[in-house]
């Protein structure tokens, strides 16, 4: 072919700028393609540079051609690129401004039109009819088709420029997008100056300096690319990828409660496909998920944080889902849609509950441990008090014996002196009081040892009553006894149990200094309901169904103030006047009962006075008699 014949060409300086422009433009196009790899914008921009490159490349050879036919061929070849310049720019503009949805059809139509133009130019002389010979070389001569072609060409170019202009005006000044649209607007305005190249196509010897604005355009675009890139990675750009990459289920509902958008995580949570969800009411996702009322409330609130929902899911059990939602509004601030983000917190909830339970257990254990520790300390303290008492008892009791004998001695000697006699009587009382304290401590320290035998509790109480008969008579107390016949025997230390009853009866007597009624009852009971210290566990003192022997001692005294009821068993706690009680009687009593694995309870009677209830296990094999 003659176009490949070097003899048809002569080196022309006028071809140099266009050749350089070709290289620059293509380098820019390839650079953008590399940087914006896989981006439609990058690809389209490459098309722009390619179209310009073809134009400039063909014109370089056209300027070097020495004959009109060769020049014409190159002039026509240039139109493999030129008609595509406006459509590529238009496409690029739409891509950068993200107006695909609106101009998609126009873009395709423009590409087809440009392709048709290119085909017409290459195959006919309707557009490029021939060449002119100017002082800078050959140049295309336009035919009659140039008129509609140029209208199309400039129409598209002006439309693209306008899109940039409108976008730039609507963009908030100072933002990246504003800078970007401004730079692109300037760059494209400049490149359009290349349109003056058309003038020479109508026979006017106007030097086609189009390569200059093209070079400026290249530099400006390179700058835009460098500083702002062509496109931000915005939610709009990556929306679909982002929402589908999200770990949390997302759902967008319109005002009517219809699902509009769901992501993959949402589909997985509800076990449904996108098709089954989108376009359906929210109940399609799950019947328990957001009722119309909930949705209405949501729309009112604007946003909701961590609203927990229980969603029964067969066969996976109930899932606990935390919902955060916000209302999307249109330009008039009218609610448009509700964006719901869900978090499956089932495992977290379970872990929290476990943690809470563990914490509760730990707290309880800690309390029990603390209480046990305190009891141990108390026990150890009392143990040492007891040991100390036993140790010092002898050393204290001997001097007390001396004092008491001294009192007796002096009493004989000062016969008739009333005051002195009174002093001596008080001294003797003081000695007895000191002695009773020591005896109480000794009882406390020795109460661990039991000599157990099967005993009749009625008999033990009778024996104790004998010991306190004198006190009963002196205080004018009426005694009411009600013994249960055929009471099962109890396995107890007789002496210790006598001590228990003496202590309790003495307390009752002391509570009724002006007389009253002392009622003592014994009975048998089969434990039926679980209560304090009654249960089925191994460590419970009594078990349901077990037969027990119960003794109740009631007085008609003033009772015990409620606030002291819990303290009555504390060592050295007493409500009696000074000198009347050691504060050890009930402590020792309780200790003895506990050593017998029994129970003791002290309560105020509704009708006044105190009731002490002792519960002891019936000797094995005897309970069924009752």
């Amino acid at each position, binding site marked *: 072919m003659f176009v490949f014949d070097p003899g048809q060409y002569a080196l022309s300086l006028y071809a140099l700028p266009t050749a350089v422009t070709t290289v620059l433009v293509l380098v820019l196009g390839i650079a953008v393609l590399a940087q914006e790899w896989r981006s439609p914008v990058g690809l389209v921009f490459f098309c722009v540079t390619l179209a310009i490159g073809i134009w400039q490349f063909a014109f370089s050879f056209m300027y070097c051609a020495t004959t009109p036919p060769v020049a014409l061929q190159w002039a026509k070849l240039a139109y493999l690129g030129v008609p595509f310049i406006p459509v590529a720019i238009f496409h690029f503009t739409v891509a950068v401004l993200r107006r695909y949805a609106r101009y998609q059809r126009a873009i395709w139509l423009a590409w087809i039109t440009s392709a048709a133009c290119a085909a017409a130019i290459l195959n006919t002389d309707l557009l490029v009819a021939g060449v002119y010979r100017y002082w800078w070389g050959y140049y295309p001569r336009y035919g009659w088709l140039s008129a509609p072609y140029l209208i199309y060409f400039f129409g598209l170019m002006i439309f693209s420029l306008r899109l940039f202009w409108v976008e730039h005006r609507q963009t908030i000044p100072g933002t990246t997008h504003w800078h970007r649209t401004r730079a692109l607007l300037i760059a494209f305005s400049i490149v359009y100056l290349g349109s003056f190249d058309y003038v020479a196509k109508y026979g006017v010897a106007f030097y086609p300096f189009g390569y200059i604005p093209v070079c400026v355009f290249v530099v400006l675009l390179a700058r835009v690319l460098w500083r702002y890139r062509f496109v931000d990675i915005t939610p709009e750009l990556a929306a679909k990828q982002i929402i589908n990459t999200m770990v949390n289920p997302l759902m967008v509902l319109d005002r009517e409660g219809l699902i509009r958008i769901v992501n993959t995580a949402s589909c997985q949570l509800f076990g449904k496909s996108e098709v089954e969800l989108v376009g359906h009411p929210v109940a399609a996702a799950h019947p328990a998920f957001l009722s119309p009322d909930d949705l209405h409330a949501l729309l009112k609130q604007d946003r909701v944080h961590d609203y927990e929902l229980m969603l029964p899911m067969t066969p996976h059990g109930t899932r606990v889902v935390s919902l955060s939602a916000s209302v999307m509004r249109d330009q008039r601030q009218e609610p448009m849609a509700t964006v719901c983000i869900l978090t499956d917190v089932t495992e977290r909830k379970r872990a929290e509950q476990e943690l809470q339970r563990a914490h509760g257990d730990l707290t309880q254990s800690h309390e029990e441990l603390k209480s046990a520790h305190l009891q141990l300390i108390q026990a150890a303290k009392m143990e040492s008090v007891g040991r100390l008492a*036993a140790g010092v*008892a*002898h*050393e*204290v*009791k*001997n001097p*007390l*014996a*001396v*004092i*008491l*004998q*001294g009192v*007796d*001695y002096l009493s*004989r000697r000062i016969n008739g002196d009333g005051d002195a006699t009174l002093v001596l009587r008080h001294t*003797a009382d003081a*000695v*007895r009081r000191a*002695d009773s304290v*020591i*005896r109480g401590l*000794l009882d406390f*320290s*020795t109460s661990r*040892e039991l000599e157990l035998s099967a005993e009749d509790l009625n008999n033990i109480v009778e024996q104790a009553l004998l010991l306190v008969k004198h006190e009963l008579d002196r205080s004018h107390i009426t005694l009411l006894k009600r013994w249960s016949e055929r009471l099962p025997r109890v396995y107890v230390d007789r002496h210790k149990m006598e001590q228990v009853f003496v202590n309790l009866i003495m307390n009752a007597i002391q509570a009724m200094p002006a007389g009253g009624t002392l009622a003592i009852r014994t009975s048998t009971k089969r434990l039926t309901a679980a209560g304090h210290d009654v249960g089925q566990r191994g460590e419970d003192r009594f078990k349901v169904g077990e037969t027990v022997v119960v003794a109740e001692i009631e007085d008609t005294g003033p009772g015990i103030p409620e606030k002291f009821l819990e303290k009555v068993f504390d060592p050295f706690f007493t409500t009696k006047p000074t000198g009347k009680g050691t504060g050890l009687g009930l402590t020792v009593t309780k200790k003895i009962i506990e050593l017998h694995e029994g129970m003791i309870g002290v309560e105020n009677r509704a009708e006044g006075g105190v009731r002490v209830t002792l519960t002891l296990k019936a000797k094995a094999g005897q309970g069924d008699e009752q």
Partner: protein
Amino acid sequence: MSNKRRILLIDDEEIFTQLLKANLEATGRYTVQVENQGSLGLAAARAFAPDLILLDVVMPDIDGTQLAMALQADPKLQGMSIVYLTAVASSRSPQASALRGQTVLAKPVATEEVLACLERITRKLERDADSGVLSSEMAPSVELTQEEG
């Protein structure tokens, strides 16, 4: 011969023994001999030949219960009535088992309690004498009750 009962009081507490002796003798019914050294108790008993011995349990040189065994073992003193006087009231004390079933007066003890106890034993001794039972046959000679209140 005086019809006063002869009491031997063996206790290391000197003042106590002096006061108790004075208080008992003031009744005019008893002659009390005091021995403050437990280890000399046996010799004192042999020499004094008491009707009854009031014996302390915890003494620095001898244990009262051991002394009682020695007294019981002595041919001259066999069947002697012994009343223990003790400040030891713990069942965990080493003497506890030896004292079980014996007549024990717990210190501090009032004179009237001692007298009541002595009277009871004296009456028993007199009853036994009247019935012609030899004192040596009175086994056991000590009362089985415990006087401690």
